[in-house]
């Protein structure tokens, strides 16, 4: 007779209008990807070419602004808008490079750790603990100063530093999945461990990996910007938002647009990735809470 006592329907406690949030994220990401793909077409000027006669022109809505440079120009007379648009490519390159690089290391180690168990698991997990106890920023400084600051160095150092998070989450999922019947069936059929790990377990973890990647990309963009700001990332004259911030810093009192707009670009992109990540988590993985 249990069915007679129907459970009271739980009140929907989600904030109203929450459903509209992904559109904000999509919108931000839309702008970002438009900039990435059509940088050459949209950007009004060559981002590298300056004209010293038109140095530090303020944006169009200020008194001395001109329509020729909507967001103004920097000290060397380079168009800020064009530099921001081209800078999006660098952000995407670095963040996706990082995610792919350390994601694949983390996922592989996590799968091995979770599936093999025993001593292998212990060694990998203790290594992850060790890694997490290292102050990441200091290691980044060290590696960047040894290998010379560049986009490649950033990707490599983040790759070396970032895997434990992935490894831990993938291991956790793997631990529960490997007790499932379909894994037993695969073993009964005579599949090798590699086959079980990568063809049976990995597709089942893919949701989590995608969600993690989307959420982490935002963090990486901020980190690379800080690295460039500190002079350890990409080097002039390449366009990079963090680098633009660093270059504009000394003129902040009378040319605030030099830091405002690159900063806004970072905010919009990170917000876009984070909101989209949250939305993805909600639809792909409603039961699970990530960290």
């Amino acid at each position, binding site marked *: 007779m249990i069915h007679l006592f129907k459970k009271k329907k739980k009140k929907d406690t989600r904030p109203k209008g929450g459903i509209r949030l992904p559109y904000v994220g999509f919108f931000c990401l839309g702008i970002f990807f438009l900039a990435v793909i059509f940088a050459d077409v949209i950007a009004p000027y060559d981002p590298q070419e300056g004209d010293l006669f038109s140095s530090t022109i303020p944006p169009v809505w200020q008194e001395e602004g001109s329509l020729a440079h909507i967001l103004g120009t920097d000290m060397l007379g380079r168009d800020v808008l064009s530099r921001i648009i081209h800078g999006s490519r660098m952000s995407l390159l670095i963040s996706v490079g990082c995610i792919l690089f350390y994601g694949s290391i983390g996922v592989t180690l996590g799968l091995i750790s979770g599936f093999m*168990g*025993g001593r292998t698991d212990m060694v990998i997990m203790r290594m992850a603990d060790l890694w997490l106890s290292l102050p990441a920023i200091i290691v980044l400084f060290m590696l960047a100063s040894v290998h010379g600051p560049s986009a490649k160095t950033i990707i490599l150092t983040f790759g070396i530093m970032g895997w434990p998070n992935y490894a831990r989450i993938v291991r956790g999922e793997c631990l529960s999945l490997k*007790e*499932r*019947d*379909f894994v*037993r*069936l*695969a*073993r*009964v*059929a*005579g*599949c*090798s461990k590699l*086959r079980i790990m990568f*063809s*049976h377990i990995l*597709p*089942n973890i893919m949701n989590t990996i995608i969600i993690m990647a989307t959420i982490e990309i935002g963090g990486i963009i901020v980190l690379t910007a800080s690295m460039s700001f500190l002079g350890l990332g990409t080097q002039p004259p390449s366009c990079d938002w963090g680098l633009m911030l660093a270059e504009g810093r000394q003129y902040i009192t009378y040319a605030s647009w030099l830091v405002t707009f690159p900063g806004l670009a970072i905010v919009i992109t990170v917000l876009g990735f984070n909101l989209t990540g949250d939305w993805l988590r909600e639809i792909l993985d409603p039961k699970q809470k990530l960290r």
Partner: protein
Amino acid sequence: MHTNNDNLLELQDLKVSFFTKQGEVKAVDGVSFSVGKEEIVGLVGESGCGKSVTSLSIMRLVPQPAGKIVSGRILFKNEDLMTKSEDQMRQLRGDRISMILQDPMVAMNQLLTVGEQLGEPFRFHDKVKGSLRDMCIALLGKVKVPAPESRVDDYPFQFSGGMSQRALIAMGIANNPDLLIADEPTTALDVSIAAQVLKLMKEIQKETRSSIILITHDLATVAQICTRVLVMYAGRIVENATIKNFYKKPAHPYSKGLIQSVPVLGRPVERLFSIDGQPPSLFEMPEGCRFSPRCSRAEKICFESYPPEIMLEDNHSVACWLYAGN
């Protein structure tokens, strides 16, 4: 126990334990039995008595690292499986020894097509001749899945329970194994589908001439297709009888109880028969016969030491002190 060369599989004093925080759990404690060629043996017992663990040990797939085969020998075609390496075992699994798992709805990976999974036994034992897809279609046809040509590309969740079970059987018999272990293949199915599946298994067994170990707690299933019954209780085999003997003159009080507790259609009863008490906790096994605390005919000796295996006649043995005198 002597080694009989006609036996396909022979377990000798198999002991499997799980090591937990609360201590050692002896899930299987000294099981010996043999399976002849083309024989269908039923392994019967309550949940948790060690049926599944026994079968997993034969495949050497006891859940690691908690579980461990402590001692005993597993002779398959007179070769001791305990001495095989993991790689050698993998060669046997899905090829010479195969298994059908319990719950068809969760046994398959929901993210791979049925065909992809059906092909695994072929692919990993280098048995692919011609098109793998055609082999899978033929296999599905063999277990009577309708329209196998289109079904092979379906995902497991598009299959009904009965069809999933057929697909699992197909996977089990893909390489015509010598030994097929079916772990409660009909438990998750309704009665009419279960009957079809059992009929199918029997047909296939006739065709492939493999031996089957059928694990179940359903005596009706056993009666339908088995030739011999092994009754397991709390990690040990208590009775080993041919199907006729088992139903006509069950010897062990536990077997008697089991048969009595099956309701018979058309014979109204006031109250269903049940065996008093609970199976013993695996942490605290009774000293003597494991069934003694629940046994209505238990004597002093039953509480003191475990009864030996007593042969009543050919192909009928029982582990019970009641028969020790004869």
